[in-house]
């Protein structure tokens, strides 16, 4: 050892857990793959195009915004891919592609970049995009087509290729051609709300119903979530809190008045609840970091979802519930900071608002 060794100087800790941010994002995208695949299987080529267009739009928007702000492109962190996939999965399969592209760009630009990009956004970007689309295109976002329609792989739903800024064509003819028994052009939640018709829970679990592209199979979404939880890339407490709250409260209501309220099983498996609870509310950036805060956040989302579904004007409330949860996350975090080791316990007497 005559030559001096070229040793480096770094500060401790010198070990590093192997899971990096881009790895987490990539695995979320992997976990969404089966959900996406099922939506293509159920709704055909239109769903595939919707997924591709929304994802491409998000990635492109992310890349262009980085270029515009003279920053290195952050496309490689995979977060834009996740946003794009989630957005597509919350849209009706018949959704016009150009609108999905607009939604993707809005998700990234308004939902993320405006706040300072990854890590600084207040709201879940995919839901910001969806909320925008719901406000901008209320008709298109409530146009439902049946799952497992005949010829879904060989023909597109007529609305898919609507030219930009033109009114989408009607889908009534497509639906009657598809010849699915008893399809009324509404999702299970809408059926319940406006016509007081309930759908079997088993159908909801397996995804044999109409709905947004990726929301229909509750069991598949839950399995994909379990994969992420097992890999410790998702906080299990958030879906547990949301689903637990929805289950318990709707069970209480159902027991109280079985004819006036839907069963808890229906509530858990219908609409966007499973997708929202597993993949949207668990977005790390927009959920609390404190142990108690996570439970409060989940409970709040569950309650608001039920409130909108049962008492509100819309059939579905998961999107707004999560956005409201995102909005109050900083307050929840502030109020639930854990007690630091060796510091006195906060008692009711010492607690003063505004101090």
């Amino acid at each position: 050892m005559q030559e001096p060794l070229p040793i480096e100087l770094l500060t401790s800790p010198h070990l590093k857990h192997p899971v990096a941010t881009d790895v987490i994002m990539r695995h979320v995208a992997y976990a969404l793959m089966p959900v996406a695949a099922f939506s293509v299987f159920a709704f055909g080529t239109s769903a595939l195009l919707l997924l591709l267009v929304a994802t491409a739009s998000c990635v492109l928007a992310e890349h262009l915004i980085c270029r515009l702000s003279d920053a290195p492109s952050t496309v490689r962190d995979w977060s834009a891919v996740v946003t794009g996939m989630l957005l597509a999965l919350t849209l009706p399969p018949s959704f016009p592609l150009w609108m999905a592209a607009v939604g993707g760009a809005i998700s990234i630009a308004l939902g993320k970049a405006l706040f300072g990009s990854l890590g600084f956004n207040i709201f879940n970007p995919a839901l910001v995009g969806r909320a925008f689309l719901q406000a901008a295109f209320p008709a298109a976002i409530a146009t439902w087509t049946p799952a497992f329609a005949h010829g879904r792989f060989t023909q597109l739903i007529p609305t898919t290729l609507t030219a930009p800024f033109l009114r989408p064509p009607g889908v009534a003819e497509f639906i009657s051609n598809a010849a699915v028994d008893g399809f009324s052009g509404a999702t299970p939640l809408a059926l319940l709300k406006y016509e007081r018709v309930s759908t079997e829970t088993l159908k909801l679990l397996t995804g044999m119903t109409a709905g947004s592209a990726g929301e229909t199979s509750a069991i598949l979404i839950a399995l994909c979530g379990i994969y992420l939880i097992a890999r410790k890339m998702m906080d299990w407490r958030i879906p547990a809190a949301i689903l637990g709250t929805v289950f318990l409260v709707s069970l209480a209501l159902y027991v109280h008045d079985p004819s006036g309220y839907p069963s808890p099983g229906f509530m858990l498996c219908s609409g966007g609840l499973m997708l929202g609870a597993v993949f949207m509310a668990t977005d790390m950036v927009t959920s609390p970091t404190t142990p108690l805060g996570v439970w409060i956040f989940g409970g709040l989302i569950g309650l608001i979802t039920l409130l909108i579904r049962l008492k509100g004007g819309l059939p579905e409330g998961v999107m707004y519930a999560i956005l409201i949860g995102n909005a109050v996350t900083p307050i929840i975090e502030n109020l639930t900071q854990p007690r630091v080791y060796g510091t006195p316990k906060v008692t009711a007497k010492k607690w003063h608002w505004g101090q």
Partner: protein
Amino acid sequence: MLLREPIRVKTFAHGVHPPEHKQATERKPVERMALAPELVILLSQHIGAPAVAAVDKKQQVARGELIASAGGFVSVPMHAPATGVVAKIDLAPAASGAMTPAVFLKTDPEADQTIPDPGELRDIDALGPSEIVEAVQETGMVGLGGAAFPTHVKMAVPKGKTIDTVIANGCECEPYLTTDHRLMLEQHADLFRGIRMALKATGAERAIIAVEANKPDAVETLRAATPGDLPIEVAVVKTKYPQGAEKVLIKALLGREVPSGGLPSDVSCACFNVATLAQLGYLVPRRQGLIERIVTVTGPGVERPGNYVIPIGTRLRFVLEQVGCGDAARLVILGGPMMGPAVSSLDVPVTKGVSGILVLTEAEVAVRQRETYPCIKCGQCVQACPLYLNPSLLGALARKGEYQAMEEKFHLNDCFECGCCAYVCPSSIPLVQHFRMAKAMNRKRKKGK
């Protein structure tokens, strides 16, 4: 008493479990390393006042002879690790990179390097508490787990406080290190003698030896060898980092929390590393000073990893030559990989607080230098911090330069830099580095006032 106690593994909430990497050295008995031609004994290798050199240039010293005396109560003396001649008293690089005063000792290759026979051993049972404290200071003993705080100061119970429990810390939760493990297997008689002294000095009623569950052989050995007259419990704690951190261990074993800014004596505990107690058990009866220590030399960059007895003052360069170290070495760390500082020079000598020398290569360094992302608020650090701090929030404040708020509102000074937060951070944010800088800036600000 014939009934076996049910196996209860105690632990704390939070923390991390990095790969242990102990298999390279945990089965290797302690062996002696050759004597280097020159030793550099830093006068300040403990927390507290530096020692004062008691020898002159060209003076002949014998192995074990006093070469520097304690510079106060919170200070310890130094003894010659080898027979030889004082070459000079000059500045030498410490692990921190600073140049600090040191005694340079040229070892005598002709001398037989044996310590004179102490004759009749001192009867430790005859010593009173204050005599034990004095005897401990005379050995120059400091915390051998890494903190290097003078041991006699911890043994002297502060006025108005009582100690009911002595904790012998054999957790060794840092990955790679195996010195305490070997020592508990090979030197348990000394350890029990050390505990006997600690019990007497502090007036405690009982002692607990805490050992992580990954060392079942040590637990068995200690349980079998526990002297019947000593109130000692060997407690198995979960293998988890930082189980061996004083505050964390006290909570795990006794459910007590050391108050923020306080000491273990505030909750009637005294916590010593098992190596410290074992060395005391050996040295005090013989009236000798601490001149060498067991060091785990390991890591992917080391050809012959092992647990070596290394004289204090041996330069890292010499140690690495002895164990074989190819060109692959990129990072040389004193202590464990989670808290140990990397050194900038191989001229840095082994000090009393060095429990390990870890050599990492390009592969391990590359993992650390992966891309940094913005904080995604995943909360992993919040769930890892053993003291329930919010590293994510502290990191954000550090980025903004809000150092004062970090200290006053978010308990920055409770952070003992265990590194759990930076270890788990998926965005590779150098949190511990942020906190060190914030602490330094706060110290500077207070000095300026």
